[in-house]
């Protein structure tokens, strides 16, 4: 009998002696897996530049065997736009931002990268919280955060897909979750389409991934996934919203 390897830790993820710096049940690493597997399948690892934002995603670039940068809070999409202009088709730019990073201080870079139509792929990992900074509420999570959090100044959660849908420079917008293997495959398909749009130079593309953050939501990992499907996906609907169905 032969033991043949099927799947496991993504090849582009460097070995590390201890547990990842993420809380139990945090799905940031699952969101990154969708990106890493797609890059491996499309054979782009030699051309990819991975830009990580601030907050919980800050240590991710140090753990990848890809050219990468730990960008200042909220500025990853600006730095990505600039890198894309220098390297053009030679490089694939992936911006992996937490929603506290991309939708708070990072709104100006995000919106204007979309307005300019810079062909970069932004993965907006939305867990509705500030994560390592102290788990305050992030702009995408204000009203839809689990009920028992009293909210000093509730504001409408930013639906980034609606915000960017009208811009001409935006070629692809989709939102998925990783709260089940089927959702994982859907989201991976969205990420793949987004990267193919970037290869074709078709303009700015963004995939929002709704992720569990059990620690901030004060829910168990299981309840968090159920909560995403029932509550979060209710206010932030899933699917492809612009430029779906291939290039």
């Amino acid at each position, binding site marked *: *009998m032969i*033991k043949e*390897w099927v799947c496991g830790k993504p090849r582009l993820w460097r070995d590390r002696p201890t*547990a990842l710096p993420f809380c*139990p049940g945090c799905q940031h690493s699952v969101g990154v897996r969708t990106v890493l597997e797609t890059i491996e399948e499309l054979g782009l690892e030699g051309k990819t530049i991975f830009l990580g934002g601030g907050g919980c995603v800050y240590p991710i670039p140090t753990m990848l065997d890809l050219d990468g940068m730990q960008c200042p809070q909220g500025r990853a999409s600006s730095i990505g736009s600039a890198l894309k202009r220098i390297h053009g088709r030679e490089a694939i730019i992936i911006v992996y931002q937490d929603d506290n990073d991309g939708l708070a201080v990072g709104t100006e870079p995000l919106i204007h990268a979309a307005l300019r139509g810079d062909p970069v792929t932004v993965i907006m990992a939305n867990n509705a919280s500030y994560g390592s900074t102290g788990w305050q509420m992030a702009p995408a999570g204000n009203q839809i955060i689990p009920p028992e959090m009293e909210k000093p100044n509730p504001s409408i959660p930013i639906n980034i897909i609606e915000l960017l849908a009208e811009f001409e420079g935006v070629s692809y917008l989709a939102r998925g979750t990783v709260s089940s293997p089927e959702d994982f495959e859907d989201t991976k398909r969205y990420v793949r389409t987004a990267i193919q749009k970037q290869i074709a130079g078709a303009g700015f593309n963004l995939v929002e991934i709704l992720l569990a953050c059990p620690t901030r939501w004060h829910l168990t990992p299981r309840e968090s996934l159920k909560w995403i499907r029932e509550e979060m996906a209710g206010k932030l609907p899933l699917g492809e919203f612009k430029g779906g169905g291939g290039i």
Partner: protein
Amino acid sequence: MARKGEIVIDEGTCLGCGYCELFCPKECIEISKEKFNPLGYPLAVFSRPEDCNACGSCVIMCPQFAIEAYLLVNKGKGKEIS
């Protein structure tokens, strides 16, 4: 003959979140009540290996990348076992 699979869980990195137990279609994995890692998190255990067909659901849902899945085949380029 049906696909025969096997998984290896790295106990140094598993934090017992329970996603693998939730999503294994054949309920082969269980969060143990006795085994804990040094930080005190309960560990996932490959409790019922007989039904595993290495579908990889547990692998892709594991946030700690702690699970490796293997297929048990008669020949092939994999590692020779007993």
